């Protein structure tokens, strides 16, 4: 069990922007969270919500157009955003390791897998140089690559997708890091392989106490692995809580909608999916007020003018949400339990103020009208 009194990593008011020709894209907007020792933390959100940029910022991997514009990343009392590059290089890969989504493009095709795992250990003085060769094989065995002593001489193209991801995990673990960050580690893999990789990560966390940050868009993956969950939308944390709180009692309409928009394999298929209408906002000029207001069925007038802050919901201070309405009220006053119409404002009946209508509505989209085509209809 994680020790929830000792944060190993503290992210405080982190802001990261990309300065493009079109303007400043504020990809991470004032994000704060703690990671505790031995904990598995999931960060969920769709592409462009800032989840990857957040962890890239933690490791100082934001490059070129991107820049950390504010905030702190405290690891063992040191602010990783302030320390010199070569000092950060010793944290990266040694204390905090990262595995990426696409294991093929993350591995060098002209070097053997073993060489690349060893390389990670030579770069840091954690493992005695004499032991490195043997540890490479041990690591591959640990991540369940069969016939490890032979396969370690193989090149990445000789490995399957799942094996490559295992090799990446072996590399990440080679220096016994305190924190392992996995950015969509199973997105490119088949479900059966995904299940094996997740089981591997779960065992690692339990056996070695390594803290894990798992980034994914798949809520199911989070439910199986993570003790605590952060939900991000448009560069901000919109809800945070234990896995139980997030999945059983979501309070932010975005979390709630995400959970209801996905078909589940274990429920009856007859029900129409409750889709989230509209698109994620433009991060250069997001809507005023709450950034989810153009898509939210439960919005009220206040949502268009004032941006809510993250506040405790319910009696447990670990569960926080950034919403004026919250699902508790939506259930009590807006009939969320029986909601079938998920269009923006459908449950609350609130239209955006006139001055905002043009800004908020995507004029490319209209209500689908299947009545429109007379001569298309089949017999």
């Amino acid at each position, binding site marked *: 069990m994680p020790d929830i009194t000792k944060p190993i990593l503290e992210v405080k008011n982190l802001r990261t922007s990309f300065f493009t020709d079109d303007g400043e894209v504020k990809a991470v907007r004032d994000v704060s969270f703690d990671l505790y020792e031995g904990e598995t933390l999931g960060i969920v959100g769709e592409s462009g919500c800032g989840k990857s940029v957040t962890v890239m910022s933690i490791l100082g991997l934001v490059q070129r157009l991107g820049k950390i514009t504010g905030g702190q990343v405290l690891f063992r009392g040191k602010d990783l955003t302030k320390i010199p590059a070569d000092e950060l290089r010793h944290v990266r890969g040694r204390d905090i390791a990262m595995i990426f989504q696409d294991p093929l493009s993350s591995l060098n095709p002209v070097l053997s897998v073993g060489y690349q795992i060893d390389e990670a250990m030579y770069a840091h003085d954690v493992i005695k140089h004499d032991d490195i060769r043997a540890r490479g094989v041990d690591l591959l065995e640990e991540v369940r690559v069969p016939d490890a002593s032979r396969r370690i001489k193989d090149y990445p193209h000789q490995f399957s997708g799942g094996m490559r991801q295992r090799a990446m995990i072996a590399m990440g673990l080679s220096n016994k890091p305190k924190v392992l960050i996995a950015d969509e580690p199973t997105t490119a893999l088949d479900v059966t392989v995904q299940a094996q990789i997740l089981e591997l990560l779960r065992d690692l966390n339990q056996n070695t106490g390594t803290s894990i940050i798992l980034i994914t868009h798949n809520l199911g993956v989070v439910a199986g692995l993570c003790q605590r969950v952060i939900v991000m939308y448009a560069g901000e944390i919109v809800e945070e809580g234990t896995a139980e709180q997030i999945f059983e009692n979501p309070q932010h309409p975005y979390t709630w909608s995400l959970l209801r928009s996905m078909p589940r394999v*274990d429920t009856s298929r007859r029900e129409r999916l409750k889709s989230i209408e509209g698109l994620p906002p433009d991060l250069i000029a997001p809507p005023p007020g709450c950034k989810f207001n153009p898509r939210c069925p439960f919005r009220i007038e206040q949502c268009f003018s004032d941006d809510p802050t993250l506040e405790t919901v319910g009696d447990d201070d670990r569960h926080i949400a950034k919403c004026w309405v919250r699902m508790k009220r939506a259930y009590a006053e807006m009939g969320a339990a029986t909601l079938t119409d998920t269009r923006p404002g459908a449950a609350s009946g609130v239209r955006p103020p006139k001055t905002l209508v043009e800004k908020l509505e995507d004029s490319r989209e209209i209500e689908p009208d299947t009545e429109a085509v007379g001569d298309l209809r089949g017999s």
Partner: protein
Amino acid sequence: MAVDAAAVRPGATPQPAEPLLRVAHVTKHFRAGVSGVVHAVEDVSFDIKPGETVGLVGESGSGKSTLGRVITQLVPATSGQVIFDGVDLTTLRGERLRQQRRHLQMIFQDPFASLDPRMTVGDIIAEPLVNFGLHDHKEKDRKVQELLRVVGLNPYFNNRYPHEFSGGQRQRIGVARALALNPKLIVCDEPISALDVSIQAQIINLLEDLQREFNLTYLFIAHDLSVVRHISDRVMVMYLGKIVEISPSEDLYESQEHPYTKALLSAIPVPDPKIESQRRLVELSGEIPSPLFPPSGCNFHTRCPIARVPGICADEDPQLQEKSPGRFAKCHFSDEVRTKV
């Protein structure tokens, strides 16, 4: 009409409707190198009834996309028949095949690659109409605007280019293009896997609405079994070029007749920590074998938890058999799937 006939002759059972698509013993081999042969699709047979949605699910490399392309005749079959609306497409060439294709459209996975960036949305949607010389100019514009309206896009944006639209909106454009010729069958090849989670449901709902409205028949290909099961009436599970199980969607989660289906279902994560904590993963040993050298006998025997090796599973390829009404499986020991896997 079968129903009317039954009304005329009391006591007669209504005949099931003629299949719209009958795939019979279709095999597709690709040549690899000098002497290698990729067994992409191996002796696959199934029917799709009019108005039905049949899902085709399998891991990468299972041959599901190749099968979709063989059905639409984008790649020719090595052997076997694709009988669409009573006509064997594999025997047609040139103009006669083109005329049949009108009724058989496809929606592709990648909404960025499947739309020509230099054509306007209007031209993209009108292209099938122009190809078949169906509409004059004025008529064409009207039709394009109607199609845009049907898929939920603003009809006055027909002069815009694909890059001005988001992924989900582009997929709507792809759907409109597929609808333009009023097809009977649409092959949807992973139509939502490139889209954001919050957008996927929009497209699924749209496809379902269109089906109801226009009497469409879908072959829905995807790797995500929860999506496939949601949209389909029947689900086919494919492994290494062969269909290993066909089942009504409703029954699939409750029980499985093939060990691979069971393994696949056990691996799908469910967004509920309580269920996840009780998950019992059916572990498959090793990885999917290369379709260049498919295993002998039942090609799943190298990974199957109940295979008799050495024995019948390694020696003899089981047939796809009806195990209970409407449920087909290709396994020597499907009785054991419920208890021993």
